[in-house]
């Protein structure tokens, strides 16, 4: 499946653009000329010596011309390694909790011109899967190996008692896997990381220890965008590293999204011209809550979301269908039963709740702006055309109130910590240090239009994400949309292939687990529509929620009340919003998929957790009822106005 993996020097297996070929030709030319240039330099020195004893002006002029030529040729020679086609740079832009429907290119009203530019220059993948939460997705992305083997069988924060001490459940990216940056570095790439890591904090777990030459990283899963304030009393400070050193303070003028971009640009520039391509993992914290953002980004959508989540979801779905992201006839997932119809809310309530979405939109737009800065810089230094961009969100949008989960109980230490550090609740202060705004399940559903549920859950709203790939590896028509079944685990084989590297069986004496993904080589080159056959399957498990997808079919098991505490079956081709559980109508299909699940469990040492953050959710949420639009009619009844001619004053 992976081509050219035996010879890293041979170059990408699925072709380079014409500009790349030209670059290769130029490299050859430089080599032959450069051989001569050494002689010229020698000759030049000799000539200078002569000049010093009184040669003519024409010799000085010729000398200058030669010097210029030598300098130019030498610089070109430095920029290209002899005998090696120039391999593309790789930039992975990860939006934290960025929703499927949050980019303009995927139907959002949020303005993302720079991400949309990448979509226009590349391909949008509408059927791409991540994991349901962040560190599991990141672990798969960087290792290509299933979470239950790579150390993120559960999130570090929610690891269950029966998983403690079990291999694959360390809560950090374990040493049994090799990372993508390690392999790319071995293959001659510079490897840079900026942003959120969330895969371990110990010295042997940080980005510098896992293959990144340069990094500026937030090791935690969340925290302030303005400073080092974290969320919980026991862990009050976020931990950052820069180039493998733990930071005692943050740079002046720190704002996460801006600083990450600044740092990456410096990393790129520092090694510019040495002829090596770079791999950059741009793991933005944005738009994960708290919605911290500069003042000027908070007021770009005042009042736009007062219309409520239903209207915005409908508008997004309409655009998605027009764009071809979703097929005509796609229905929205039902509004979750505990979310009110915004029509029944008071305007002030809608304004307050809408303002949260205004901030979220600002977060995404600010993220896009800084992506634009990176793109612009790569264009300025002539690297844009030779850079592969891969853009996606790490999981579904966040619908759970993380802050309440941590600090919501009065009298607890975390509550007091929040009182001291996170109590700036006035809407005008939202976005400032000390404020903690998230947007709740209603807007998370908007971000995940048209899907059901959100981050942490196995409905499409938890695991289905938007993906953009652009750059020299992409041969499909620019701006096209693909519906092949893709998975974040595919990135390891795909990028190794692009880099002309291979996935080894052992690394530093350790036997490596097999990759779970499939290269996108043929998909990107236009030779195939999907890297997967109808028999290939995808499987997920986190917090005890679990799912299997094979072809158009999907079974999922979720805690009540979002799930049924039992397996449900959906046909995603017919019902992408998972509106109707058809398990009872297709028992054989359920049985077949359960057999796959069992096989997946055995192959990957899946240990279902004995405890789950969702284990008591059924007691916290209102009793689940169907969402029947217009029910009860009582709350929608308007004032009855009798015919004018039948109206009268009371008789005396």
């Amino acid at each position: 499946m992976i081509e050219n993996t035996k010879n890293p020097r041979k170059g990408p297996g699925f072709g380079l653009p014409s500009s790349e070929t030209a670059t290769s030709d130029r490299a050859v030319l430089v080599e032959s000329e450069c051989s001569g240039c050494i002689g010229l330099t020698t000759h030049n020195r000799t000539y200078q010596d002569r000049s010093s004893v009184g040669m003519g002006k024409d010799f000085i002029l010729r000398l200058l011309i030669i010097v210029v030529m030598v300098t130019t040729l030498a610089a070109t020679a430095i920029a290209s390694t002899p005998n090696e086609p120039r391999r593309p740079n790789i930039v992975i832009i990860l939006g934290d909790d960025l929703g499927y429907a949050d980019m303009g290119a995927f139907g959002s009203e949020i303005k993302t011109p720079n991400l949309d530019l990448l979509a226009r220059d590349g391909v949008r993948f509408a059927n791409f899967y991540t994991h349901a939460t962040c560190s599991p997705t990141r672990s798969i992305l960087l290792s290509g190996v299933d979470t239950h083997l790579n150390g993120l069988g559960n999130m570090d924060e929610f690891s269950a008692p029966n998983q403690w001490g079990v291999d694959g459940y360390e809560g950090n990216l374990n040493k049994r896997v090799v990372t993508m940056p390690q392999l790319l570095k071995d293959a001659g790439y510079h490897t840079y990381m900026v942003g959120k890591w969330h895969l371990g904090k110990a010295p042997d777990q940080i980005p510098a220890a896992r293959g990144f030459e340069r990094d500026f990283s937030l090791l935690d899963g969340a925290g302030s965008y303005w400073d080092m304030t974290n969320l919980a009393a026991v862990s009050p400070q976020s931990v950052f590293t820069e180039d493998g050193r733990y930071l005692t303070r943050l740079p002046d003028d720190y704002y996460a999204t801006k600083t990450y971009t600044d740092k990456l640009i410096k990393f790129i520039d520092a090694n510019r011209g040495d002829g090596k391509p770079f791999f950059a993992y741009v793991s933005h914290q944005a738009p994960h809550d708290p919605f911290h953002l500069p003042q000027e980004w908070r007021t770009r959508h005042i009042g736009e979301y007062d219309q409520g989540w239903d209207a915005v979801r409908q508008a997004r779905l309409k655009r998605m269908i027009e764009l071809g992201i979703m097929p005509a006839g796609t229905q929205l997932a039902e509004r979750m039963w505990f979310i009110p119809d915004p029509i029944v809310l008071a305007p002030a309530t809608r304004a307050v709740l809408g303002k949260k979405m205004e901030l979220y939109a600002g977060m995404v737009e600010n993220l896009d702006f800084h992506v634009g800065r990176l793109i612009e810089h790569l264009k300025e230094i002539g690297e844009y055309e030779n850079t592969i961009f891969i853009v996606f969100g790490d999981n579904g949008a966040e619908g759970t109130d993380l802050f309440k989960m941590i600090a919501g109980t009065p009298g607890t230490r975390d509550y007091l910590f929040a009182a001291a550090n996170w109590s700036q609740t006035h809407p005008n202060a939202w976005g400032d240090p000390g404020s903690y705004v998230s947007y709740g399940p209603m807007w998370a559903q908007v971000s995940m239009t048209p899907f059901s549920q959100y981050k942490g859950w196995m409905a499409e709203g938890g695991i289905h994400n938007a993906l953009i790939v652009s750059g020299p590896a992409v041969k499909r028509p620019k701006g096209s949309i693909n519906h092949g079944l893709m998975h974040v685990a595919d990135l390891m084989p795909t990028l190794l292939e692009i880099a002309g590297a291979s996935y080894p069986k052992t690394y530093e004496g350790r036997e490596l687990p097999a990759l779970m993904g499939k290269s996108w080589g043929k998909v990107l080159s236009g030779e195939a529509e999907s890297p997967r056959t109808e028999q290939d399957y995808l499987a997920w498990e986190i917090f005890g929620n679990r799912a299997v997808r094979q072809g158009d079919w999907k079974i999922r098991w979720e805690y009540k009340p979002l799930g049924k505490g039992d397996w449900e079956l959906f046909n995603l081709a017919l019902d992408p919003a998972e509106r109707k559980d058809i398990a009872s109508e297709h028992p054989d299909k359920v049985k077949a998929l359960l057999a796959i699940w069992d096989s997946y469990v055995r192959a990957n040492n899946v240990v279902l957790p004995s405890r789950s953050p969702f284990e008591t959710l059924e007691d916290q949420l209102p009793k689940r009822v169907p969402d029947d639009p217009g029910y009860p009619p009582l709350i929608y009844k308007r004032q009855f106005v009798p015919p004018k001619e039948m109206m009268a004053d009371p008789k005396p």
Partner: protein
Amino acid sequence: MKPAAWLRSVIPVMLAVGVLSPPPIMAQVPGRSYWKTLSGANAVPLIVQSISGNTNPFDPSYTVNPGANINATMGLAGYLRAFPLFGRATTAALLVPMGRISSDVILAGATASEAARGFGDPTLELCTNIIGPPPQMNLVDVLRYEPGFSLDLLADLAVPIGEYNSAQALNLGQNRWYGRLGAPIVWQIGEWVPGQRTTLEFLPGVWLFGPNTNYQGKKLETDPMFQVDAHLTRDFTERLWGALDGAWFQGGKSSVDGVEGKALKTVALGFTLGYQINENLSLTFGYKSTIKDKDEGALQMDGFMVSLVAGWHSLIEGVRRLKE
């Protein structure tokens, strides 16, 4: 997640964004008097001032009585309502001064005393915004209100029906029409977040006085007097704020049957502390004194001020009842 719960969560927000700002009082009003509030809001101020000096504080022309020692305990009660007028935020107020005033004047070794008590001249005030945010017609507007740079037009008119005794110089009523035209300015500095709000405020104005044709049997006339009040206000917490206050007076030369006095040219400095007790009550305390006032004929005045303002809005009260 219930809608009702969400609505309740909004209430503190709307109550916290300045539904009840202190209403204007006569002459030198404290800072933050011209902040705008939810249309339909009502307020009743009760202001008590203890003032000493050589002028009658009930008379905004501040005519200087050289050698006099005047002490006044002045109360001010009134009613204010916010409403839109031609699409602009407007407040109308009725303010009634009351109190006691006494003076001792030493002339040629003898002390002459006068005293008065009762009600002063009620004042009608209309203040409408010219530049600035639109009126806050609903809670959404309240939520999004920030003054930015706002400029109002202000008109005061005192009705001469207060206690007046033409036999003495010292009175609570002034026995003449008078009023003021002004242009209150509120300039927001920084974010509009309770606990962080900072404003620079000015009230330039001109006082205009009609004649008093029975001033101890004579005719009292007063030239227009220009006044600029300035305040630098700053939140200390979400409920506590303070201000540095300044006032400048010029003009207002009076004449009695053609015998002219001196025009004022006076500066006063002071401070104010304010505290929002709850959504309905705010309390302020202030002190102000004229400076460089040792010259004969200079205005001398200092005073303490305590104000309690009760405010309400039918919507807020209804929400509170439901909340309880």
